[in-house]
């Protein structure tokens, strides 16, 4: 009996305990990290409004994030719109309501797909780059050099990136909305033979400005998440090229997951 206990029950219980402890530790670390990130965000907010405002850096970053991500966002948008129209058009056709395709696609795009997919694409493209740049600067002492020259790294590197992301993300999301709808329109009218006038009419009837606004509002939130997480991870890089690589991966993974989690809660709580 005791042998049975030693062999099967005890290891099971103790490994359960270990898992519990490590989960507890992991969540404590995660909370601590979140606290530090929020402090960084607060510091950035204060620095952004204290003159001189670094417009040049903000514009540079907007260009980097916006122009850089434009192509990939357009590409993602057109295919998402197309495939979504194809799927929902076919489903609606089962009960003869295919003219609703446009309205449903528009609502889904503007509320969910556009802000979320745009944020994921920008994370992959620009969040990773932010983490890599800042991480490299950290391990090569360039951040220390900034501090030594009495320039606050948060003011010079982090705040402009966060502001730029906040300004650019709603624009990219709007572009996603538009291009996605274009994709849906092409598939619906050319492939599924839905009447273009009906397609537009249903959109006008069912889609509200609030749907679009909701998506844009979310995108601002996502902008803060992805820029904050990426910059923070970059700053944490300490030990050379390997560490920079690891931090870039973490920036992308954490941002992506946080965006999806935040999306759920934003939707549940605010809309």
């Amino acid at each position, binding site marked *: 009996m005791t042998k049975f206990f030693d062999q099967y029950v005890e290891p099971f219980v103790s490994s359960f305990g270990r898992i519990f402890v490590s989960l507890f530790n992991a969540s404590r670390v995660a909370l601590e990290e979140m606290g530090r990130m929020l402090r960084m965000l607060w510091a950035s907010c204060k620095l952004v409004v204290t003159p001189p405002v670094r417009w040049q850096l903000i514009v540079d970053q907007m260009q980097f994030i916006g122009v850089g991500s434009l192509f990939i966002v357009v590409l993602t948008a057109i295919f998402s719109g197309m495939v979504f129209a194809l799927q929902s058009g076919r489903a609606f056709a089962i009960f003869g309501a295919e003219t609703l395709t446009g309205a449903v696609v528009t609502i889904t795009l503007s509320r969910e797909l556009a802000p979320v997919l745009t944020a994921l694409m920008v994370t992959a493209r620009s969040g990773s780059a932010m983490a890599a740049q800042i991480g490299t600067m950290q391990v090569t002492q*360039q951040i220390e050099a900034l501090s030594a020259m009495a320039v606050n790294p948060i003011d010079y590197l982090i705040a402009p990136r966060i502001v730029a992301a906040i300004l650019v993300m709603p624009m990219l999301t709007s572009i996603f909305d538009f291009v996605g709808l274009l994709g849906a329109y092409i598939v619906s009218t050319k492939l599924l033979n839905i009447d273009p006038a009906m397609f537009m009419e249903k959109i006008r009837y069912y889609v509200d400005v609030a749907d679009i606004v909701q998506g844009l509002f979310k995108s601002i939130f996502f902008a803060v998440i992805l820029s904050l997480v990426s910059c923070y991870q970059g700053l944490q890089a300490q030990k050379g090229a390997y560490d920079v690589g690891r931090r870039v991966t973490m920036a992308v993974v954490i941002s992506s997951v946080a965006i999806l989690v935040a999306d759920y809660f934003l939707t549940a709580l605010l809309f």
Partner: protein
Amino acid sequence: MIEFRNVSKNFGEQNVLDKLNLVVEEGKITAIMGPSGAGKSVTLKLLMGLLKPDEGQIFVHGSDICALADDELASLRKKFGMLFQDAALFDYMNVFENVSFPLYEHTKLSDEEIEKRVEASLNEVGLENVNQKLPNELSGGMRKRVGLARAIILEPPIVLFDEPTTGLDPIITSQIGDLILETHAKRNNTFLMISHDLALSYRVAHKIAMLYKGQIVEFASPKELKYSTHPFVREYLQAQLNLEGSR
């Protein structure tokens, strides 16, 4: 005046500085020498507030820098210029942008004025026609000199040099020595210089501090240093003589 009072610094288990005491006189050139890995660079970073000591205080003009708030620290740092051991140039900026960076950040000079100042200070360190080059397109010695130009472009009252001449040829080394002496004669600033170059230290420094096992074991003028009785200092100087003898 700069004063380190009982400063200790550990990295994990490793004790790098152990109750270090050092007074750097204002308007003088002080050299810190000591074995590789002794904590010389760490000492400079502590002085800039880039690292925090585990124990002890560091006074600059009477105020303890460890007790300063961020903005006070920033305004204190404007009095400092620092050359990092590996220059720490911004790798995405070209040479001109690197050297002009402090001027754009902390002065309201016109573009032409800034161009003139950068040009002049690059000439002082023996560089020309490198404005458009990126740090990665320069040799190690050239990078060091760009870092030097950047460190002194604001003419700060206190300048910290981490090995200003390591990796430079003898001609440039002696030129940097001239530059340090000239700058000092002109503006009478406080220089704290780390160097392994005994000849340079003898030539420019008023005082030489020997850092060994986490403490300053000797603090003397170049003349006095030769008569030091500390075993490590004797060994250090003897090794230098051996090197010269073998030439």
